[in-house]
């Protein structure tokens, strides 16, 4: 566990979370959310939770993002907020 | 032979939970595309489950209080265990029996409303029941969370199978339900970080041993868990998701969830209050008893008044549930035996009477094709049998003897008086009076027939059934009568039931 690393990832996580919620393009939001998941995955690995990191990588960064993109494609891409 | 029966009795809780689960899986495997393929399997598995629940109940009573079942054979806190007392066994029995009877009741409706998706409908339906039973039995805080999520996911999907309004209300439910469940999970996390265990009894023991009752994090955990559960049980003002969800959902779902979901969550609240935190903390250390009773008073009054203002029958009933949840929360929090018994007893009685009313109203809405109060016009003459069922449920809601609603009110009011919470007592009586107004308004309409007054404005096309029923089949009437009989029986045997509950909740 390296706390400097920890802090950097956490800061990036907050930033990506805010960006994911602020961009008006839902496709971009989904992708940024994928980045957010990937950062979390890094964080877990760094904190020693390798199994959680593995799951998060496959489920969070992988499938979640894909199904979100799929939904964006079959609905609207623009969001009002 | 005796050994064999002992073995069966030992495994009965497992049968209660797993029979619906296996039923669901088999429905998925074998029910392909046919509308009624799932029904026989659902009925068989639920009957099996009911037998399991009843055997469990008698086993609990015979063994003097509680049963424990170690899943995976691991001793707690390493493994997950079931802890079943009379309250749990009764609640589980109520859950599976309602599920079974409702499966019969909704036989024709599932075919009509779910069509080709009927097997999937039954899969979700059965898993919902399995989840509810699991919630009732488990003694592990995290297992509880997983099961809560199973019931939530199944109910989101089941509700969303209704019309387009149902999908929208289901989405709201997803948002609020997730917040509720997540807050519960967070609260469990707070407890875990302070106690290092997930076993509900173990938490209380660990907190007592470490003497950390006064810590801020324990209080916050308590509040988080409670707020989470309140969201799931639609405690005013966190009830926003419920009225639309229950009234636009498919018929079979409304009649299943209205009697069960909120009640099981009340059960969980009782469990958490008494066993995870202990009565001393819940009523003393947490220091929020007075506020919660005041909140429940507000919930009762608000629920009743909102119900009074509705012209949509099902929505009116859901607001009545909001008020009933207020009853139970208040009863659980006045902090004495009578109140607690009342709250626990009301879980059963409210399940019976809500079930009865929802079935009657569903029949009426389907038969008349009208979802507003105008549907009732002249019904005593047109649909006397349905109205008998409706009347029994309504009298119970008002709280007239010998229905179960009267006796739960009796215990709750007694608890309120004993604790000196006059505001709560007045709210209970007020809600009885409002219920009387609501239901006698309906009776009047049903009894006198045509009335020359303008129809209430605001027709809502989405809650109107597409095609009125030609006639009411017996498969709908018999379940209604069973529920009405349950309302009366739970009332008449309240003394016995309350005795068991009192022993289970001994504080």
């Amino acid at each position, binding site marked *: 566990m390296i706390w400097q690393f920890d802090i950097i990832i956490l800061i990036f996580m907050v930033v990506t979370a805010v960006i994911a919620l602020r961009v008006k393009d839902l496709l971009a939001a989904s992708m940024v959310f994928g980045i957010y998941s990937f950062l979390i995955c890094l964080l877990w690995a760094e904190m020693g939770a390798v199994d959680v990191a593995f799951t998060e990588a496959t489920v969070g960064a*992988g499938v979640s993002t894909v199904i979100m993109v799929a939904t964006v494609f079959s*609905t609207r891409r623009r969001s009002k907020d | 032979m005796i050994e064999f029966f002992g073995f069966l009795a030992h495994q009965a809780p497992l049968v209660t939970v797993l029979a619906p689960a*296996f039923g669901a899986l088999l429905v998925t495997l074998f029910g392909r595309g046919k509308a009624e393929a799932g029904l026989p399997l659902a009925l068989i598995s639920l009957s099996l489950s009911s037998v399991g629940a009843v055997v469990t109940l008698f086993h609990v009573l015979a063994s003097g209080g509680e049963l424990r079942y170690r899943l995976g054979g691991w001793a707690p806190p390493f493994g997950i265990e079931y802890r079943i007392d009379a309250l749990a066994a009764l609640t589980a029995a109520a859950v599976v029996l309602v599920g079974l009877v409702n499966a019969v009741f909704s036989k024709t409706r599932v075919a009509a409303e779910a069509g080709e998706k009927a097997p999937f409908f039954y899969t979700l339906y059965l898993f919902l029941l399995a989840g509810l039973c699991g919630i009732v039995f488990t003694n592990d805080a995290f297992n509880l969370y997983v099961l809560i999520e199973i019931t939530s996911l199944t109910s*989101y999907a089941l509700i969303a199978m209704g019309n387009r309004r149902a*999908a929208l209300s289901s989405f709201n439910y997803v948002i609020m339900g997730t917040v509720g469940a997540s807050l519960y999970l967070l609260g469990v996390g707070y407890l875990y*970080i302070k106690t290092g265990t997930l076993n509900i009894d173990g938490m209380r023991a660990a907190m007592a041993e470490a003497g950390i009752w006064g810590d801020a994090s324990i209080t916050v955990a308590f509040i988080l868990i409670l707020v989470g559960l309140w969201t799931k049980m639609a405690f005013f003002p966190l009830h926003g998701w419920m009225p639309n969800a229950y009234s636009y959902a498919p018929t079979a779902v409304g009649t299943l969830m209205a009697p069960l979901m909120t009640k099981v969550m009340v059960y969980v609240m009782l469990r958490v209050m008494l066993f995870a935190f202990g009565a001393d903390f819940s009523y003393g250390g947490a220091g929020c008893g007075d506020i919660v009773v005041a909140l429940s008073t507000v919930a009762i009054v608000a629920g009743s008044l909102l119900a009074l203002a509705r012209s949509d029958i099902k929505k009116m009933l859901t607001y009545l549930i909001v008020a009933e949840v207020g009853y139970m929360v208040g009863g659980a929090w006045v902090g004495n035996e009578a109140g607690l018994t009342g709250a626990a007893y009301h879980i059963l009685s409210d399940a019976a009477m809500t079930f009865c009313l929802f079935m009657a109203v569903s029949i009426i809405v389907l038969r008349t094709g009208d979802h507003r109060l105008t549907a009732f016009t002249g019904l005593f003459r047109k649909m006397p049998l349905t109205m008998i069922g409706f009347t029994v449920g309504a009298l119970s809601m008002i709280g007239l003897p010998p229905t179960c609603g009267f006796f739960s009110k009796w215990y709750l009011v007694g608890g309120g008086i004993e604790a000196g919470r006059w505001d709560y007592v007045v709210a209970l009586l007020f809600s009885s009076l409002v219920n009387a107004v609501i239901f006698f308004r309906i009776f009047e309409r049903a009894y006198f027939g045509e009335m020359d007054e303008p129809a209430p404005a605001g027709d809502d096309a989405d809650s109107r059934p597409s095609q009125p029923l030609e006639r009411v089949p017996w498969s709908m009437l018999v379940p209604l009568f069973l529920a009405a009989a349950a309302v009366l029986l739970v009332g008449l045997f309240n003394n016995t039931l309350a005795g068991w509950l009192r022993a289970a909740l001994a504080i």
Partner: protein
Amino acid sequence: MKLFGLIAVIIVGALLLSATGDFPDFGDPQSPASASPLSTHYIEGSVYETKVPNLVTAVLADYRGFDTMFETVVIFVAGIGIIAVLRAFGTPAAELPEGGGEEGDDDLIIRTTCNLVFPVIQVFALYVVAHGHHSPGGGFQGGVMLGASYILLALSCGLPAAKRRLGERQTIVLAAIGVIVFAGWGVACVLFGGNFLDYAALDPIIPGDVQMARSHSMLGVEIGVAFTVTAIMFVIYANLSTRGRLRDGL
């Protein structure tokens, strides 16, 4: 709504932060959660009871196996729920309003690459499932990867191509079988006289000692988990990308 949201956030945030001061320090090995007999037993004792070096797998599949079974059910229910909500059996495509997506045309390079990668992913996924006892991984991770391989196929070569490998009916059956394997394993324990999911009861029919019975049983249920997860991940994708029509997706 925004104001209400702000107020709710401030109240809940303040509540949560008020408790933070009370927690043991981050990473403190002596915190109650880390020093409790529970976690100590899992770390120090589980290998003697299960012979599985990956502690997470041991706890996941054995000590808290009942949780994991219901976790599989959660996945299963989600998949069935999505079908129940979204799947439009036989609805003509013209009746549904069009979304913003446009059909991308097939690209030879992508198709070829994916066809090459597809078996590799699957083999690795199977390794993850099977090797979960000794390294990070297990039924969930492997299952998701297997599912992802089909998703990749659907993305690159179109949904029909993926459906040829894993048809809708087969998917649902596979998912159900996965849960049945897990729950059935538990029932088998009951039939051999143990409690539900008490793998030790299966000692008579599984080679090796009691610990190995547990270890092998874990592998068995992990495979069940993998079945379900594979199938449901694909179901989720297939339905969501086509709005339940299961024709050509993205």
